[in-house]
């Protein structure tokens, strides 16, 4: 195509360039073109950096400063308190540690089975089956529901008195469970909400990666007498390593920000507290509670920063862990 253009236009262009050269000086039109080439790239990426500076960088820097003060709408004056907020948060606030414990607990309870199920599901979809498109659509469909909708539907399903799950348990002669009353029960309920929405999505990501694995590997293994199970663990999993790491990191970042599901698990008011004794209060819920109920803005800044550090550290930790596990196989 480029050839076509070059042969079509030369006469006109040559004469133009020639006449410009003859004049010796740059015409305004040419310097304009040069300016265009120089400036356009910056102009095109500028909108992002403007928005990011105002609504991304500035608030983050402000958070750092805030966390070193005792600012609050209740305080007429703001004073610098150094690291007091962080010290109080880490050493004197059991509610914070409870929230950390809950967040990490629910992350593990939700993510481990979720990714394992997604792997199995992807492995099933990677076989010769009719209706590929239907199955893919079906398992992906939960992601169209918002976290709020998921939370509301499952809140009813996990109802204590009239909930579907308790009815099912009753059919097997098991006593009804008060799903909001204890840590294990509420963590389980909330984890199923997360898993319902994300398992199919992760399965599709794994499926895409599985389809890229060369079939020769499996054929050679089969000739050597490796069972299907063995092939799955010795070929599929190691080959999927980068993809698994990707999904683990994404799940970590999302999981440690868990908010909507536990918030709406409580109907009526007081959702931010995450149950009568904070059984399922997450770090983000705690952060909003400090902001709006306790009105301690400086302290909230410290919570924000600690949450971010936890996410960063935990992502790195998971990265190292998963890399190790999947390469040992």
């Amino acid at each position, binding site marked *: 195509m480029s050839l076509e*253009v070059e042969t079509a236009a030369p006469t006109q262009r040559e004469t133009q360039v020639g006449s410009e050269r003859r004049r010796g000086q740059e015409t305004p039109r040419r310097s304009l073109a040069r300016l*265009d080439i120089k400036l356009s790239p910056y102009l*095109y990426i500028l909108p992002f950096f403007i928005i990011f500076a105002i*609504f991304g960088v500035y608030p983050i820097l402000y958070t750092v400063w805030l966390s070193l003060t005792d600012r609050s709408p209740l305080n007429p004056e703001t004073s610098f308190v150094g690291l007091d907020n962080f010290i109080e948060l880490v050493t004197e606030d059991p509610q914070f540690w409870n929230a950390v414990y809950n967040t990490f607990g629910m992350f593990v309870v939700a993510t481990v089975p979720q990714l394992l199920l997604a792997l199995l599901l992807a492995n099933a979809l990677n076989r*010769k089956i009719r209706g590929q498109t239907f199955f893919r659509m079906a398992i992906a469909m939960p992601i169209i529901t918002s976290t709020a*909708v998921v939370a*509301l539907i499952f809140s009813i399903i996990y109802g204590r008195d009239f909930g579907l799950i308790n009815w099912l348990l009753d059919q097997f002669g098991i006593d009804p469970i008060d799903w909001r009353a204890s840590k294990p029960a509420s963590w389980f309920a909330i984890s199923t909400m997360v898993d319902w929405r994300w398992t199919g999505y992760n399965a599709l990501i794994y499926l895409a990666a599985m389809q890229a694995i060369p079939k020769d590997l499996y054929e050679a293994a089969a000739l050597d007498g490796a069972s299907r199970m063995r092939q799955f663990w010795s070929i599929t999993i190691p080959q999927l390593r980068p993809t698994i790491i990707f999904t683990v990191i994404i799940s970590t*970042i999302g999981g440690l920000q868990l908010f*909507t599901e536990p*918030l709406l698990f409580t109907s009526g008011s007081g959702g931010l507290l995450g149950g009568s004794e904070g059984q399922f209060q997450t770090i983000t819920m705690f952060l909003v509670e400090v902001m709006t109920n306790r009105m301690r803005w400086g302290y909230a800044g410290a919570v924000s920063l600690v949450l971010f550090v936890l996410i960063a550290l935990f992502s790195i930790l998971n990265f190292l862990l998963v890399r190790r596990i999947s390469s040992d196989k």
Partner: protein
Amino acid sequence: MTTTPLARTSANGKSRRRNSDQPGQLWRATPLTWIGLVIAVFLSFFPFYWMIVIASRTNDAANAWPPPFLPGGNLGENIQRVLTNEDANIFKGLLNSILVSGTITVATVFFGALAGFAFAKLRFRGKNALLLVILASMMVPIQLGVLPLYLLMAELGWLNRMPAVTVPFLISGFGIFMMRQYAEQSVPNELIEAARVDGCSTWRIFWHVVAPALRPAAAVLGLLTFMEQWNQFFWPFVVLADPANPTVQISLRTLNSAYFSDTSQIFAGTLIATLPLFLVFVLFGRQIIGGIMEGAVKS
């Protein structure tokens, strides 16, 4: 090669024949495969079905033992009740959500394509460093700056108003990144050079040469952005505290925090809030799944 038609056409005859031989058994579905898939589909669909069941029952029937398993005849009535609920303002919430998600989608696609084009095809100083900044911006959770952002909105007079949930999200690092990837693969450099030689300005090259080539990626990015924004909860919850002017998700939250829990009305609300995305999924499900499978979705 694989079971998808696309991959099968790309496989050569030899490997296909080998697949149908003994090792090909690997790719055959066993009864266990089918059982697993049927269970997965059932679990995937059931909450949607259950949403319809409860949304079409009276509140008494929704809170009964045993729970109802079939849809009833009160859907219209429940929807009417939730639409006229004076606390939840769900109709206004719907309009707001359409406006906010629509605006963000158009802006994200446009600016994503523009900046993606610049990063993929134009030469300028500091390109890699700037790209790294964009990548880093994708990893920062909104919680990190939530309080200053809130105070900023108060300064701007945007509390409880739609600009607060629109303007900060008009351009996404993810969108730029995705468009850059696509532009790199799909727009040949010769095409751009040829247009340059012909005296096209950079803007005309973008508009007439690059933008048309980016259309498939733009469609996927648009769909994913719309879905993501429609479902946004945390930030609207913080900044739209006044239930008088909500997004649809915040309307649902208001319904749920009412003193008297009206289950069938809440479910009618969830149905209304999900319907637009359900339509999007029915129409464009293939593209959405294609987007996910390219690893092109963030959290």
